[in-house]
């Protein structure tokens, strides 16, 4: 059989990764993060606290599953084709779970269904993120992450007309079966270019990430920073979700214009993030992310204090900018810290400890504060202060004299 040129194979792999991750992230943003809340509160009549408890269960089970699966993948040295097969299984089960959502009628079924969703997510995270070292060359990781972020957020802002489980599941029931068929063919049919794709991870252009040689110390710092980003975002947004005046003219607007504006902001910010990720040290992006979060929450607290009736779109615009920037970093960073052998474990540690642990803790804290009667202004003030602490902490760390070993290792990489 005729072999395809290497560039074409690379492009196909890049497209496959971007498409798969974009749909996966769209699923997570809409169906998981927003749809489950609607299903619990509107569909089953559960209280906010009960639904939040279920969401915490989701975060914990996903976190533990991802860790177990990631460590197992690294120990066993799971290769490209096996990762594809795991991803196929995950998407197949997620499609079935999405289809099953219509038949959930009791809280017990809801709980069991959430555990099943968490298991699929937990296995899916290291398997799909892990494909980055096989499919995305190091120099294209920023822009690939930008395209994933841009497509997922643009879709999430435009496609669901309402924040209901039905509106979220409808497009997924078209997208996911197509993904199942495509991945099934790639994972199980003996196609020659899949063999070529499976060999890519051995090439230096794919295998040596930007921070691979500095991994241990930097890895811990990045987990802490990403934890901070997820925590600040989640803690702030969970409270904004309950403030109709901030949501109805923006993310939850009945009109398309504000949602289109936010979607386009996500696209522009993601492209900015992708270009800057490839050109700058990632620490500089963290300055921007924490700085923008601090400014945005300051604007929200001003708006609360001034009791303005109309919240200007500048606030969601800045929020979307910060979110897109850190999502780009999240999609590119873990692969850049890993080799094909360590990617499963590193992604699991990174995403589990930063993403899911931050989500779990911020959800619990937000509910505790809300049930304790904390005002919106105070809540946002604390989030603002947290963002400022991280921002100033980074500046202080940046001013510290460089360790000779760190300088040497950076020379080695360049």
């Amino acid at each position, binding site marked *: 059989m005729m072999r395809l040129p290497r560039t074409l194979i690379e492009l196909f792999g890049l497209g496959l990764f971007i498409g798969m991750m974009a749909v996966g992230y769209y699923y997570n943003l809409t169906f998981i993060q927003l749809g489950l809340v609607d299903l619990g509160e509107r569909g089953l009549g559960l209280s906010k606290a009960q639904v939040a408890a279920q969401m915490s269960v989701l975060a914990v089970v996903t976190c533990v599953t991802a860790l177990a699966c990631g460590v197992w993948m690294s120990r066993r040295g799971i290769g490209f084709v096996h990762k594809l097969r795991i991803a196929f299984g995950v998407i197949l089960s997620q499609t079935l779970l999405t289809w099953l959502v219509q038949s959930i009628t009791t809280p017990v079924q809801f709980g069991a269904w959430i555990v099943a969703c968490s298991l699929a997510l937990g296995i899916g995270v290291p398997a799909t993120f892990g494909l980055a070292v096989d499919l995305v060359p190091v120099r294209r990781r920023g822009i690939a992450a930008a395209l994933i972020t841009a497509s997922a957020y643009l879709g999430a802002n435009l496609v669901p007309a309402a924040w209901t489980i039905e509106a979220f599941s409808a497009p997924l029931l078209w997208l996911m079966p197509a993904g199942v068929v495509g991945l099934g063919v790639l994972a199980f049919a003996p196609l020659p270019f899949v063999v070529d794709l499976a060999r890519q991870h051995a090439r230096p252009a794919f295998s040596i990430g930007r921070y691979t040689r500095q991994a241990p110390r930097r890895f811990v710092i990045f987990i802490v920073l990403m934890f901070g980003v997820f925590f600040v975002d989640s803690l702030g947004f969970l409270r904004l979700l309950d403030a109709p005046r901030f949501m109805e003219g923006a993310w939850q607007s009945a009109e398309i214009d504000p949602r289109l504006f936010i979607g386009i902001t996500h696209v*522009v*910010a993601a492209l900015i993030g992708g270009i*800057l990720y490839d050109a700058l040290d990632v620490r500089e992006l963290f300055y921007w992310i924490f700085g923008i979060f601090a400014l945005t929450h300051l*604007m929200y607290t*001003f708006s609360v204090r*001034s009791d303005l009736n*109309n919240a*200007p779109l500048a606030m969601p615009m*800045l929020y979307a*900018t910060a979110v897109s920037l850190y999502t780009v970093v999240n999609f590119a960073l873990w692969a850049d810290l890993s080799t094909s052998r360590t990617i499963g474990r590193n992604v699991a540690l990174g995403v589990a400890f930063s993403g899911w642990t931050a989500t779990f803790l911020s959800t619990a804290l937000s509910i505790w504060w809300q049930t304790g009667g904390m005002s919106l202004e105070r809540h946002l003030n604390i989030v603002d202060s947290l963002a400022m602490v991280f921002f100033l902490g980074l500046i202080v760390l940046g001013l510290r004299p460089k360790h000779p070993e760190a300088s040497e290792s950076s020379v080695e990489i360049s």
Partner: protein
Amino acid sequence: MRNKLKRLPLIVTMALLLLGGCGEDGVFSGSLVLGGDLQIEPGLVETADVLLADGTVTIAEGATLRGDLYQMLGTLTINGTVDGNVLLYSGTLVVGPQARITGDLQLSSGEIWGDPEQAVAGTIVRGPQSGVFGPEWLQRSFARQLLWIAAQTSGLSLLAALMSLVFPRSLERVRLAIREYPAVCGAMGLLVLIVGLALVVQMLFTVLLIPLSLLGVVLLLVAAGLGWMCFGVLSSRWLAHCFAWNWPDALVAGIGTLVFVFAINLLALIPGIGPLLAIGSAVVGIGAVFQTRFGLRRFQAVER
């Protein structure tokens, strides 16, 4: 001492350019309404520009406001005289039966009650303002437009020539950043603009930080100007190469900036693509200036 003398023409030029920013009415004065009510009572004459960010402003029958009115949100009721222009970006504008606006009325969006046709002595411009040059600019005579372009172009080219004498390395660093990393500079410029403008507006709202906010605006303008100058230097190198000029660097920088800024100003007159080119080059320039910390360091992207 020699260095100080060398910098004197630069300082004088910058001071002259800043003086050019002062209007014929002298120092700017204005009122910012963030909430609550501002009422100009009958018989009173207020002289100030007013920015209505939220709340209500009422100009009662028999009252006069000498200055321009900018409405972002809130409710503006005019039943007296506004000796200036009114710009409605959003919110509600009520034009009473006794209202009189001596200047123009520009309506971007928002609600309008009453009959503005009777009240406005100037023209009524409807629809969102777009592009670098709004309707006010287009209404100017062609000679005035050319005069403005010539003044801006010659000012910047003179500054570029002086900068290349006094700070040649800084100009070179920004020029290299633009030439070698246009996409990175564009991305950084956009980010600086998005966040910088929001920060400037937010500081304006605190009242206490208004001086810092103005400093931010000045920094952004200086960055945009410096960026354009470096685009000019970039084109001057190309021109020097094409025509085999063997002239002093300062002269080449001045001529390059003259050609570039004049071309950008002319292109900006073309609807659609023109303003985009002007804004795009300014964004890339701002990004390059920030990446090089105003020309203080060489910017190099990380290598793999």
